[in-house]
């Protein structure tokens, strides 16, 4: 279904009426409503006769009327526009049931109200997961588990302490090659050490860090 994202099409944009200032008075509003009723009824009569342009203007003018009727039933959000579209489709299908001798707006509003009630009933029948305890329990929580941030911070602090405790050459190799992800050439140019010395220092540093971070009594077999 197409959803509305834009301002409403006013009936008076399609059927020019009197100036807006007059519409603020109740009498003028009543007159405007009567004029709208007469114009819509005339357009519907023409549409029943097959006048496509009158039908197009009628359908557009029906949008705000149908929208108001649908909202009055309690529909909100995207459901309003779905019900408005249902109303237009129903109007098209049952346009022969409109009696040209009778008012058009009550006929249209009755259809819109019914489509809104249908939408409300459909929404009432739709199952909601929040009422399903099993689904509620099984729903994964996207947020980090409690204590996860604390553990991460502790691991980072341990690593920083272990790196700081390394000899200067090994610490430089770790900082430039592993943490700052520089290339061997860049690290060699920055530190003034050869690429071979950097590689050896990095290898030794990793071995030392593994030993210090594994904790007492934990180590690789053979160490």
């Amino acid at each position, binding site marked *: 279904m*197409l959803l509305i994202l834009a301002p409403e099409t006013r009936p008076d944009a399609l059927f020019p009426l009197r100036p807006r200032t007059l519409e603020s008075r109740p009498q003028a509003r009543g007159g405007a409503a009567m004029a709208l009723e007469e114009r819509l009824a005339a357009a519907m009569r023409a549409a029943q006769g097959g006048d496509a342009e009158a039908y*197009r203007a009628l359908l*557009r003018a029906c949008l705000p009327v149908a929208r108001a009727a649908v909202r009055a039933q309690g529909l909100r959000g995207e459901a309003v526009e779905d019900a408005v579209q249902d109303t237009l489709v129903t109007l098209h*299908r*049952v346009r022969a049931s409109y009696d040209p001798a009778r008012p058009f707006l009550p006929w249209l509003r009755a259809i819109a109200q019914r489509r809104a009630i249908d939408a409300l009933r459909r929404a009432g029948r739709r199952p909601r997961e929040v009422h399903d305890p099993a689904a509620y329990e099984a729903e994964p929580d996207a947020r980090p588990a409690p204590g996860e941030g604390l553990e991460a911070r502790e691991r980072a602090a341990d690593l920083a302490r272990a790196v700081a405790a390394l000899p200067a050459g090994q610490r430089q190799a770790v900082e430039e090659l592993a943490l700052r992800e520089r290339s061997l050439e860049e690290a060699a140019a920055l530190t003034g050490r050869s690429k071979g010395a950097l590689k050896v220092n990095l290898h030794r540093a990793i071995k030392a860090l593994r030993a210090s971070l594994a904790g007492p009594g934990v180590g690789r077999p053979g160490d």
Partner: protein
Amino acid sequence: MSEIQLRPHDRLVDDLVARLEPVRPLPSPGRRALVWAGAVLALGLGLLAVLELEGLRGPHPAEAPLVLFGAVLTALSAAYAAFATSVPGRPARWALLPLAPAALWIGASGPGCLRALAGPGLEAPHAPHGCFTFLLGVSLPLSVLLVLMLRRACPLRPNLTAALGGLAVAAAAAALLAPFHPQETTAVDLMVHGATVLGVIGLNGLAGGRLLDRSRR
């Protein structure tokens, strides 16, 4: 802002306009009710050719014409109410129209019921399943015709419209039965008649409601 955002329903409007064909407005509810009543009359005339007029023989209870009048009035008013409630914008109060004729029909049948219950007992002088067959056999085509006619409109309260249609059909069937049914009724007769009439109304209300609901189509 895109074209779709400016006129969100334009595609649907264009589609509906492209499918527009001239239509003839439906006749008024009164005229449609008369057309259906004409079909009932035609069916009654057709039955004359195949059934005997047992109801016209022997003594007539005093209330018999009133019962028949009530049934005919109920059939006509219920048919009108069904057609009126099938048009959007017509008030649901039309559903109250057949209440008074139905009260007349049922009320006028009261003395006959009392006589039958206090009278000759449960033994019927004729087979009661004949009444059942007659009522169902007449109700079925009348129901189908009425539903087809009602479907051409837009019943927004399909169950109410269908129940009114069921009442119209049941009353019409009862009215058609009168000339072909012996006047001396028994308790079994009344039970069969009552159950069949209620069954016709109930079945129309249930099945007809589904058939008339345009949101299901």
